[in-house]
Structures are given as C-alpha cells and as structure tokens.
C-alpha cells in the first residue's frame, strides 16, 4: 500500500509543478521482495568468496552450457589472473584475483557475472522488452526483439550486458541464469560445476538465511555484510567476503534504491503532461483569440 501512496504523492507533486523531478534519488525501497508479483519465489545464488579457489570450473561449465566459442587461453591457465577481466560477449562469467588484505598468502577470487537484480535496470530500460525479468528470478534476453540500442548497457549499474560490436548482426550477451536448465529442474551450470561449494544455487530467501547463518557462526571469517542483499534494491546473486568488498572489485556507492525507481517519477508525469498540457494550451489559445476579436482585430488567417 505504501507504493500506491507514493505514486499518488508523485502524481500530486507533478501536478503541482515539481513535474519531472520525482525526487527519485532519495526514495528508499522499504523491503526487497523475495517473490515475483505472482508469488513465485525468486531463485538466486550465494557466492562465498572465502571458499573460491579460482579453479575457473564455473567459467568452463558456462562456456559449454551456453555453447560459447572456446577461448584462446585454456581454462586451466593462471595467466588470465594477471589483469582484471570483464565479462565479454563470449564469456558470461569471469573469475578475477585480488590481493588479500587479511592474509597476503591467500589471494581472493571473485567471480563476476549478471547479478540478476530483483528490480533490474536493464529490463526497465529496454523499450522492446528484449531484457525481461522472469518470475523465477533471472533476467533473460530475447534476441528476436532486440534492436541493438544498448540502453541496457548504459543503465546496468554493474556493466554486465555486452554487445557484439564486431558483428553485422549483433546481439547483446549476458548470463541468463541458465534459465532453460533451471526450468528442467537442473542447477545453473556454474553452480553444478563448483567443486568447493563456493557457488550455492537456491531460493533467494533461503540463501539469505544461509548467508546470515555463516556470518553469525563465523564472525571473524566474514565481513558483516551480504553484498546484494540491499544493493540497487536487492540482487538475485549475492556475495560473502572476508575482506572489504571495495577491495575486491565491488562498487559500494550504488545505493539501495532500485533503478526503475529513478525514472518512475518522470514516467508517471508523462500521461499527466500529455493530457494537461494540450488542455492548458487550447485554453490559452481560445483566451487570446477571444481577446483579439474583442479588440476588433482580425484574428489572423490561420483560424
């Protein structure tokens, strides 16, 4: 019910002339939903960076499951860790190595892929619903709808969607949470392949419980923070860490407002402007036409 009250206030505010501002930035999401609007529990993943050994089995499994081209450097090569990698159109998940502030002998490995936001910015940005949040949790990509405008890339706070710039018929590519595999009752390929249990697949609600349990039981081992619990309104894929998240490649300045909220104020003013503006302008026009006639002037050749 708070939502409808907020919308009401927004419309009222817009009518009062605040119009396009919406005050979106300061708005906070009260609670991150754990289910879709249909009541289906969101799936998610819990990635425990304290357990990851950087074996890159997830990368290899992802490559096979999504039938991506084989990389030039083998999945067992350690040389890839020499520089920080981003996902690419041909690699939906990449593991990066970071120096460990707590224990210099044991570097931290962090995998990077789509976070499957609870309220994804890419899906709300897409004007033809090529990016779509599924009720089960993952954000998938419909290649037949996409027009290649790349607004999803502009909007994604994690810079995950990648574009095939070198193709004459390019698509946007990113992790889709192995949607088909999960629908068949299997786990996403990366979670199934992980030998250390560092990647845990399950219901987002249960994973949060598991994450909290780990932090309570091992307060010295973990930071008191679950990355993705509240970030940008909650993400489906969440992380645990022993060291500050900012030291292992995470942005900690993203805030807890979900991104569709940033434009909802503006968008809610749109129908209002579309209706009120013509009414006001027609009024102006009649007012001025009448006055001109009274003055005995010819009101012109237009009307």
């Amino acid at each position: 019910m708070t939502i409808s009250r907020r919308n009401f206030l927004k419309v009222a505010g817009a009518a009062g002339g605040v119009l396009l501002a919406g005050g979106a930035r300061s708005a906070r999401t009260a609670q991150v939903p754990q289910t879709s609007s249909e009541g289906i529990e969101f799936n998610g993943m819990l990635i425990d960076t304290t357990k990851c050994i950087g074996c890159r089995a997830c990368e290899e499994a992802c490559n096979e499951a999504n039938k991506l081209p084989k990389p030039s450097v083998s999945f067992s090569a350690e040389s890839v860790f020499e520089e920080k990698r981003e996902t690419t159109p041909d690699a939906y998940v990449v593991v990066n190595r970071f120096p460990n502030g707590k224990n210099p002998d044991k570097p931290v490995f962090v995998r990077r892929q789509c976070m499957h936001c609870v309220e994804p910015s890419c899906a709300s940005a897409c004007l033809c619903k090529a990016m779509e949040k599924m009720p089960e949790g993952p954000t998938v990509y419909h290649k037949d709808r996409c027009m290649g405008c790349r607004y999803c890339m502009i909007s994604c706070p994690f810079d995950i969607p990648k574009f095939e710039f070198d193709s004459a018929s390019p698509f946007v590519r990113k992790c889709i949470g192995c949607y088909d595999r999960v629908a068949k009752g299997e786990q996403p390929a990366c979670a199934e392949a992980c030998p250390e249990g560092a990647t845990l697949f399950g219901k987002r609600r249960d994973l949060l419980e598991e994450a909290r349990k780990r932090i309570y039981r091992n307060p010295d081992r973990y930071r008191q923070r679950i990355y993705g619990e509240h970030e940008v309104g909650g993400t489906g894929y969440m992380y645990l860490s022993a060291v500050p998240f900012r030291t292992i490649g995470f942005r900690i300045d993203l805030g807890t407002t979900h991104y569709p909220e940033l434009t909802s104020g503006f968008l809610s003013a749109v129908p209002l402007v579309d209706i009120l503006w013509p009414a006001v302008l027609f009024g102006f026009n009649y007012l001025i036409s009448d006055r001109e006639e009274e003055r005995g002037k010819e009101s012109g050749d237009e009307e």
Partner: protein
Amino acid sequence: MKSNVTPMPIPGMPAAPDTGTLKGFLRFLAQELKPRGKILTPFNVVTGIIILGGIAIIAVRFARGLGAVTNLSQAYPWGIWIGFDVVTGVAFAGGAYILTFAVHILKVKKYEPIVRATVLNGFLAYVFYSGALLLDLGRPWNVVNPIIGNAFGYGSVLFLVAWHFLLYTLVLFVEISPAIADWLKWVKAKRIIQKVTTATIIVGVTLSTLHQAGLGGLFLTAPSKIHPLWYSSNIPVLFFISSMFAGFSMIIIESMFTHRIFSDRLDEAHRASHNKILLGLAKGSASVMAAYLFLKVIDLTHGHQLGLLLTPMGYWYLVEVAGFTLLPLVLYVVAIREQSTRLVQGTAILTAIGVILNRLNISVIAFKWYEAVRYYPSWMEIWVTLAVISMELWVFRWVITRMPILGAPPDFTAEEKTLNNLGDGEVVRWKVSSSWKVSAS
C-alpha cells in the same frame, strides 16, 4: 492510390493543371529536382566529398559491424552518434516548438516571418537525426518493434522518447506542409491543413516537452556513471529548459546564414522586421537561461557538490556553465540594452557551444569519467556526422530555393474564391483538377 495512371487525377494530388495530374506532378517534380545555379562551388565540392565518403563508411559499418568504424567499446556503448547527432541535434531542433507556440498559440505575430524556416529546420533535423540513429542501432531492422507492439516496454524512458520522436516528426511534417501545398499550388489541401494548424501545434508542443525532457530522462538510470556535477534528478527539466535556448540560438544562427546566402528569397517585410525579431529572440533566450542557471545552482548547492568544483572535472563544469551559459546570458542582456543585433548573433554562437558542451558532457565526457581508457570518437564517426549535417544542408537549400519558406506565401485569393463558390457542402476531396470541376458541376 489507383493503379491506372495518367490523365486520371489521383487523390491527394489536386490543384493547378501543372501538378493536378500524376504526369504533370512528376514533370513538375523532375523539373524542380534539377540543380540550379553553379554546381562546382567550393561548398558543393567539399560537402559532396564528405557525403560520398560518409556513404562509404556507412557501407563498411553495415557490412562489418559498429566496431569496424567506431571507437565504441563495452565500457562506452554510446558515442557521438548518439551524444551529438541525436541528443544535441534534437535540442537545436527545439526552435520549432517554441516558435510555433509563440506565433500560433500566443499570437505573437512579430515572429511569423521566421516560422516556416524554423519549422523546416526542425523537421529536417528530426528526419536526419532519426536517420543517424538508425546507423547507431545494432539491429535497425527491429526498430519498429516498440511501435508495432510485439513487445511494449512501457517502463522505459526510451520507449517514451521513441514514440514522441516519431509522432513529433509527423507533426513537423504537417506543420511544414502548407509550404509544400504552396509550392505545388494545392489550394484546397492547404485550406484543410490550415484548419488543423492550431491542434497540430498544440500536440507538437506537448510532444516536444516530453521528448526533450525524455532525452535527459534517459540518463537518470546512470547515477553511478555520470559525474555528480552533471547527474541530477532534474536532468529532464534541465534538458527541456535548455532546449528552449538551444532552439532560440539556433534560429538566430540559422537566420545569419540564410540572410546572407538566400537574400534574394527574402521579402521586404521580413528584412525590415528582422532586427526586432533577433532582439526578441535574445530576450526570450536570456530569460530562459536565467531560469536554467537558477536550477543549476540549486542542484549544485543541494547536492553538496561545491567541493567538487575544485577538481579537474569541476573546472570543466565551470567552463560549460560559467563560460558558455552565464557569460552568454550576460552578453544577451548587454546586446538587448545596446540594441546590438551583431552581439546577439555572436552570443547565439556561444550559447550553442554551451548546449553542445552540456549534451556531450552528460552523454560522453562526464559519462564514466573515472574509466582508465576513455572514449573519443574515431575519425570515421566524425566524418559520418559531418556527412549527415551536409546532407541536411543540401536538402535545406533545395527546399529554401523552391518553396516559399523565407518569403511571403503566394497569393491564392483567386483560387480560394473559386473554391468558396463551389459551396462548403462539398465533401472534402483533395483534388481541384479539371476533371474534379466537371464532376462537381
């Protein structure tokens, strides 16, 4: 449209014997399409080479993908084809809505002589910039998806922008069509168009409001990527307001060139009132710029970003806001007091640079300012941009030298009388050819 051609007049092609029949119309068109005047002028040669080169680059882009000709990357998905061609170009097309509003809604007759040129400018800008947008889309053949409705992304600002973009281009076409009717001497068609003028303009102003604001609204979804000095929840309002002075300054700049180049097309009334018009535009521009700067200051202080001004990006921000918005505002005020049209024209150029800087800052320069490897446009991106502008100038010149855009529209009183004598009960039909008169008698 009927398929049996010749002497039969086809619907939609009425009026004078010349253009009332398909054959006559085609002959007229063929004759009008022929270039006039000297062909090998320096302007034609330079822009011709730019256009040919641009077409070659565009061919490569469609054969081998965007990566082959642009410097776009995974970190910078949008470059100057969006940031300059679309985002900046549309701002400058804002003159059309603001001027039609003044003349037709507020009935400020003073600006009537420049309405057609401004609307033409706006229409061509929209046509060519949406064309440029197609070059940037990865899968332009899917551009109809959000229009035909196989998947409506209602929640997207871009969806709003696309629809308003399309509809406003149609509105601009209707707004410029009286000039086309004058050119073809389609008297009845012109009368029908004039009946819907007011409604069209009101729809146009509404669409422009949201469309200009929406282009800014696109960047609301990138709070963590745009430098805090430029990111604001007020971006839509700022874009809307600045499109007004962008429009004003573009009208002033455009008239500088048209008055010099097409002086033979101007009538005396237009020439005589021009100084007054320029000073009026300067006043309009100055007051809007004051409001804009006020909002900018509020953003700056409320966001507690004053400290950021003393960083390299802060200095760059000051160049844009103080150097190319505040300074032109002051100069406009001086020009109005001194009644100096020269100064108005110079200031309009400064203002335009300020708008370009602002749009490029938000879409390209202050976008991911923290990235180690920055985007800068490739020579081919710049070349294609110049080619798009050149093509627009060619079409602009073609229209100006053939249709009554700058001078007074032709006098159709005689033809109007014939129409009136035929009675208002006549069903609206867009043909006044000889065969129409037979059937009406």
